[in-house]
């Protein structure tokens, strides 16, 4: 199969690796322009409070202070749906009240310290279930259930489904508040010059920021240029134009000087977006042979103080898509609370219901006395199932191969034993979980541009922001393969709104599909134009030509001409354009199965992940090194979701108690087990060269697989993340009692 391709499927270093390892790569936070001003926020110490007075007199006197802005200076519009750019009602601890802009950070801080804000604290609500009550404090006047009522999605007849069931299993699950903790915090440099705004933003989607800032400043999009050459991590937190970028742009226009606003680490914990906590009730009906007959689910998404996006609808998809089930009822609540904002984080709405559903499936398999692997194979949604509501099949489906290969790799058949079989204080366990989601699919917009220069070299111009997933390299490989040229002949310019076209955000694992398809089609368009010229030069039909290693030959001939020679009589450089289309009547999904081995020390409660096999249907691995890196990185974050990360809110004050890297626990190199990627290639008919996106799913699978392995080790089930030493010890106590 690999013989088909010259470049696709080869192991390549990142196209921009030299810049990234040498300190030469300039991230938005590294940018320093002459005369640049620095902005800093004063944020609310209260979870809910009315601002009654802001005294800025002393701060104004600080030399070098250029602007102090409060809610009184803000435009009347709300950002996103319901967020003031600076607020007079703080709705979470960390809500932005004042911004100070000064000639340097010291001066800005000095001025901030001199500002006196009077607050009238208001009652607050932190628990999404309590927030539903009629007497709960209201975060916004319109009530705490966003949209006024829950979302409801049904299929078939659940009453009938439960009647057909031999066993009905109910349980409740909780997942915590998490922060993305991107290494580079939220940061933006805005420069207003010659009636035009140029912005260097650490963003996953420059075009979204362009549109947002054009709206905010009421100027045409053509006057806004947003550039993101390098960025230090996004994971979903940097997908929109946010308050800090709006403010930097407004003040730059006002002062005529470049303005940089970079959030501190603590501000990033409080005021950036988060993986929102969820509370999930599941009730599943199943026949004795393991066939699912009915699913009744309720998901509560605690979106915090402001409504960025409809998280719960994404979460509801997991319940409806991973398994084949004719009778389903899913109810979903998007809730306001006085906690930090919920938003998109790696695999967006899926990891939370994934944990709940997979833990639940593990529980049901146990109650049925079935092997968890057999139970998954019995019920997983097949190729023909796809969207079970609209009856659209999947475009490709490697689920069964993922399960079988993962099981084989870990030795499931001969090593999986009954729970708690290991003697001694360190108990071994094996666990598994599966995953399906729409990430990695084709979306709109999908576009690309490919330019062939007179010397035969090629520029790929793509809207794709390279977050470190090797997206530039992927585009180069796709273009080089399509054009039949060596990789070195291609240069990629990415994520500059002025010279590239929109491929959507580097979100939803989409860029291989959207940027990749656009680039491939653009390369094909450029190639067609090139071959027309070559055909004239070689006095033959263009259908009679092929390109090998950058040389154009008449079919089968040993003598050909270079691109440069073919372009000699070209009226202008070649520009190829590509627009990708959405598939009709089919849905593209990614699939995965993880198998994990853990050791649980019952004296300390420590869970150690020993080994993790991560099998992923990637369609086709364009660059296997990048794919492995994404799987290993995503799975590591997923392990932390299972065992470690938790942004804790003090229930008495609503304040975050761990907004720093000492107390918010990330994994270090010592905590990471051996993670062994298994690449399943299903050659998707819609992806470029058969590829699908794959970067987010690795996050979703480890947590439930680990929970399953812990149960297998010690016979205790956990329905709340993270599973800490404390929860393990408490669970063991419960077992004794």
């Amino acid at each position: 199969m690999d013989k088909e391709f010259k470049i696709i499927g080869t192991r390549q270093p990142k196209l921009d690796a030299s810049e990234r390892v040498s300190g030469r790569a300039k991230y938005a936070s590294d940018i320093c322009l002459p005369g640049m001003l620095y902005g800093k926020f004063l944020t609310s110490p209260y979870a809910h409070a009315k601002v009654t007075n802001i005294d800025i007199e002393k701060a104004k006197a600080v030399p070098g202070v250029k602007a102090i802005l409060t809610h009184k200076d803000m435009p009347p519009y709300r950002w996103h749906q319901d967020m003031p750019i600076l607020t007079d009602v703080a709705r979470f601890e960390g809500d932005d009240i004042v911004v100070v802009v000064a000639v340097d950070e010291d001066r800005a801080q000095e001025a901030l310290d001199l500002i006196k804000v009077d607050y009238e604290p208001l009652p607050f609500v932190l628990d999404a279930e309590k927030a539903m009550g009629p007497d709960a404090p209201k975060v916004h006047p319109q009530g705490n259930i966003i949209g006024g009522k829950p979302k409801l999605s049904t299929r078939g007849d659940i009453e009938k489904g439960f009647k057909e069931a031999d066993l009905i299993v109910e349980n409740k699950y909780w997942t915590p508040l998490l922060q993305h903790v991107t290494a580079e915090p939220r940061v933006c440099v805005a420069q207003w010059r010659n009636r035009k705004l140029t912005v260097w933003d650490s963003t996953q989607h420059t075009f979204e920021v362009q549109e947002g800032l054009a709206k905010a400043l009421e100027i045409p999009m053509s006057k806004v240029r947003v550039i993101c050459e390098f960025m230090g991590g996004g994971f979903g937190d940097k997908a929109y134009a946010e308050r800090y970028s709006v403010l930097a742009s407004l003040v730059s226009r006002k002062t005529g000087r470049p303005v940089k606003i970079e959030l501190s680490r603590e501000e990033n914990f409080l005021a950036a977006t988060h993986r929102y906590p969820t509370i999930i009730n599941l009730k599943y009906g199943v026949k004795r042979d393991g066939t699912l007959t009915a699913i009744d689910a309720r998901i509560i998404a605690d979106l915090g103080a402001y409504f960025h996006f409809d998280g719960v609808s994404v979460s509801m998809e997991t319940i409806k898509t991973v398994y084949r089930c004719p009778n389903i009822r899913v109810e979903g609540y998007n809730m306001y609370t006085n906690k930090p904002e919920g938003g998109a984080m790696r695999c967006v709405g899926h990891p939370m219901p994934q944990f709940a559903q997979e833990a639940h499936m593990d529980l049901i398999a146990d109650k049925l006395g079935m092997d968890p692997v057999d139970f998954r194979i019995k019920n997983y949604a097949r190729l023909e199932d796809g969207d079970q509501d609209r009856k659209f099949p999947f475009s490709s489906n490697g689920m069964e191969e993922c399960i079988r290969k993962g099981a084989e790799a870990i030795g499931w058949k001969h090593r999986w034993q009954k729970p708690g079989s290991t003697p001694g204080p360190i108990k071994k366990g094996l666990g598994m979980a599966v995953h399906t989601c729409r990430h990695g699919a084709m979306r709109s917009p999908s576009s690309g541009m490919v330019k062939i220069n007179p010397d035969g070299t090629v520029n790929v111009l793509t809207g794709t922001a390279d977050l470190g997933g090797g997206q530039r390299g992927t585009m180069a490989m796709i273009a080089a393969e399509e054009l039949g040229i060596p990789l070195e002949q291609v240069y990629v310019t990415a994520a500059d709104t002025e010279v590239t076209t929109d491929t959507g955000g580097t979100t939803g694992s989409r860029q291989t599909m959207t940027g990749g398809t656009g680039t491939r089609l653009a390369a094909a368009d450029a190639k067609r134009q090139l071959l027309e010229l070559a055909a004239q030069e070689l006095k033959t039909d263009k259908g009679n030509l092929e390109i090998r290693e950058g040389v154009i030959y008449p079919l089968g001939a040993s003598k050909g001409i270079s691109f440069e020679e073919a372009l000699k009589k070209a009226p202008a450089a070649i520009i190829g354009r590509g627009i990708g289309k959405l598939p009709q009547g089919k849905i593209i999904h990614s699939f995965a199965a993880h198998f994990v081995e853990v050791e649980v020390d019952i004296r300390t409660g420590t869970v150690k992940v020993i080994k993790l096999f991560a099998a992923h249907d990637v369609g086709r691995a364009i660059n296997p090194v990048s794919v492995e890196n994404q799987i290993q990185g995503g799975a590591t974050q997923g392990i932390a979701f299972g065992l470690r990360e938790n942004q804790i809110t003090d229930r008495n004050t609503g304040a975050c108690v761990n907004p720093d890297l000492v107390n918010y626990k990330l994994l270090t190199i010592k905590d990471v087990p051996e993670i062994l990627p298994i690449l399943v290639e299903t050659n998707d008919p819609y992806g470029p060269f058969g590829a699908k996106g794959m970067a987010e799913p690795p996050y979703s699978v480890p947590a439930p697989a680990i929970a399953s392995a812990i149960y297998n080790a010690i016979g205790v089930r956990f329905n709340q993340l993270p599973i800490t030493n404390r929860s393990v010890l408490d669970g063991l106590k419960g077992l004794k009692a």
Partner: protein
Amino acid sequence: MGEKEKKPKEKKSRIPLKVSRRDFLKGMGTTAVAATLTAGALPLPEAEATLPAGVKEALIQLTVNGQVHRVKVKSHWTLLEVLRRELGLTGAKRFCDRGSCGACTVIMEDKAIYACSRLAIEADGKKITTIEGLSDGEKLHPIQEAFVEHDGLQCGFCTSGQILSVKAFLDKNPRPSRAEMKEALSGNICRCSAYPKILESAMAASQKG
């Protein structure tokens, strides 16, 4: 950015007293703004006239990547701030800014340190290597080459720190075990979690040298 901008003439850059609706935001409290926005760009550095209470200045000497710099610093500035802002060496990054992530790692007198956790005045007279000093022009150091070859990075924001930790460690212990290497890198967080490939790169570098 390397972008050179002519210093704006004072007259031109001053905020217009008459704020037109087009030039300013609809609905913005214009009086409040006029009151709170002070006049535009004065010749820099304009804030140096007075120092806040308790802040002192000092002239220090740093030898960075073999080059001697004399820098006027404020007493509370960190080494990281001085490297990034005063010397323009932005390879060392600000991630946590509290000595708990390692993205700002530099080598000071043969020891890997967190530049965010040293005051610049503490580094007076010291020899410092930053990531910019590791490569020889376009030619990468063998450790950097190993990171490229083994894809030991994703976003790259922590990479300078990772590489300098490897460098400082290999200088002392050129043939470490995997466990020793993990220990040496345990103070460098990679949020993308490219850890398996970072370890692979670091071990490959140890075999190269």
